[in-house]
């Protein structure tokens, strides 16, 4: 019984989400699963494997370094990981629920002919997990009967383990083949000086009440004063105010910051699913009846176009 954690990274930097998935893997270890290996699959990713080797709890780092894995295309990555799993006999495959893991993990599970348990929030035992369903309005406890358990981890439900202090062994694996059926063309990253939504301590999000993307600077000014990330509701994304990577909700990003400020957001079920585990929630909305107030610790019924500049002044 050995656990394989598939690391999230960009070939240079180990993504912090990996620290959350290692935490879930550690719990599996305590539940009886064996050693904890971390796989770095990428291209020119030596720096990442060095970072992974210092992460607490990791017993071994495996490196699959080849040009075919530069963008982790599922068609190239999945067969390589499956060959590794079959060869080494892993009992658990774990990855954070990021878009790259969501893309490749089910492909790996199907090639192994096993089910995947998506987005777990709790490890009950080596084969039993809790996961939210129906936009977090119900929690299902599920038990897997498969020989290999493939699990994706909701990062907000697990603490990040220490990134430093360990000195795990690093082993280089064989190169992965390019299957020649898919290719990367380009990438458009939203550049921002602000913290990432997934790891921000404070998030300020705007909804349909913002009326236009042109009004988002009102939020951004507050965000910059308090070091917050900026998010949006699905309604604001659908209306074209901001791009989809701002979206907090069931179908966007799931966040749980210390402080979440919802501005002009009514509080649809699918938005609440993405933020209701935040420690402190603030709602600013002119509609006294908005459902967002039912989950807010502090509610302010006000016109956001007056409240936001005031907030910027006072923080």
């Amino acid at each position, binding site marked *: 019984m050995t656990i394989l954690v598939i690391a999230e990274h960009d070939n240079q930097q180990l993504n912090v989400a990996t620290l959350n998935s290692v935490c879930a893997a550690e719990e599996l270890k305590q539940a009886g699963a064996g050693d904890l290996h971390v796989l770095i699959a990428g291209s020119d990713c030596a720096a990442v494997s060095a970072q992974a080797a210092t992460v607490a709890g990791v017993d071994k780092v495996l490196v699959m370094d080849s040009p075919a894995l530069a*963008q982790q295309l599922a068609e190239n990555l999945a067969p390589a990981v499956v060959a590794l799993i079959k060869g080494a006999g892993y009992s658990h495959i774990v990855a954070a629920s990021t878009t790259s893991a969501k893309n490749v993990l089910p492909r790996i599970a199907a090639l192994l002919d096993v089910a995947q348990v998506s987005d777990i929030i709790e490890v009950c035992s080596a084969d039993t997990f809790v996961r939210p369903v129906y936009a977090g309005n119900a929690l299902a406890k599920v038990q897997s009967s498969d020989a290999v358990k493939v699990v994706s981890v909701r990062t907000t439900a697990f603490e990040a383990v220490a990134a430093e202090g360990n000195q795990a062994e690093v082993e280089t694996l064989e190169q992965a083949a390019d299957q020649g059926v898919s290719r990367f063309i380009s990438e458009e990253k939203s550049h921002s000086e602000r913290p990432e939504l997934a790891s921000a301590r404070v998030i300020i999000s705007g909804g349909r009440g913002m009326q236009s993307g042109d009004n988002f600077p009102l939020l951004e000014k507050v965000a910059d004063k308090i070091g917050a990330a900026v998010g949006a509701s699905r309604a604001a994304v659908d209306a074209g105010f901001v791009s989809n990577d701002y979206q907090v909700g069931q179908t966007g990003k799931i966040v749980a910051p210390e402080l979440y400020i919802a501005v002009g957001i009514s509080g649809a079920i699918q938005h609440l699913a993405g933020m209701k585990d935040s420690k402190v*929630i603030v709602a600013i909305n002119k509609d006294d009846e908005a459902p967002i107030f039912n989950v807010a610790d502090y509610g302010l019924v006000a016109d956001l176009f007056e409240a936001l500049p005031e907030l910027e002044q006072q923080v």
Partner: protein
Amino acid sequence: MNNFILLEFLSPQSENSLDEVVMKILVAIKRVVDANVKVRVKPDNSAVDLSNVKMAVNPFCEIAIEEAVRLKEKGIASEVVVVSAGTKDCQEQLRTGLALGADRALQIETDAEVEPLAIAKLLAALVEKEQPGIVMMGKQSIDGENNQTGQMLAALTNMTQGTFASEVEVSGEELLVTREVDGGLQKIALNLPAVVTTDLRLNEPRYASLPNIMKAKRKPLETITPEDLGVDVAPRLKTLEVTMPEERQAGIRVANVSELVEKLTAEAGVL
């Protein structure tokens, strides 16, 4: 209307190329609880209570139908087939698919709660039979929220995959897919046949018109069984318990921004 524009636009030569279009698109859809319903758990904690709850086509699946129909309207696809696995009830959603422009429908009749891997196996058997150029489906259903079926189907059929698509374009022998990824967009090129899973911004689905709803009733809807397809749909996961999460309680109202800032600083200590 769309056909009319298309015909007017085409030269005789391109009309010929239109005749040669043989690409079929298979769209897999799911009947789910309506997105605005807040579900309750059954008192015995065995499952979510779905009795007398409004049901609908999973929103992401609606986007998949729309995209397939648009590819047909552009002359890139020749036929759009919608498929769903479930009880007779899911015929309602298949008829919606037909009303939105699909040509025919397939219902895989099963009472069982079919897991993503089993759905992928059923679809893989259909792919073998139907030989589609593209299989489209939603990136996830809003009930089970697994986000697995498309990727699993691609694995089982050795097809390429374009997940979380916000733009799809057929270019020669390739499918160009723009994907919504953490922190931005990624564009990839895929060999056909390919599986595409749809994200929100791919399109805005149309509403079915009354004449199209009437027409949909006469379109072919075939029922098959997992046995016909030779697929074992036995579950791999056992649901031990379904519970309600702890409800968050509403807090207090503050009168103005100053009070808010004071509370956040002094009381909550988060500013």
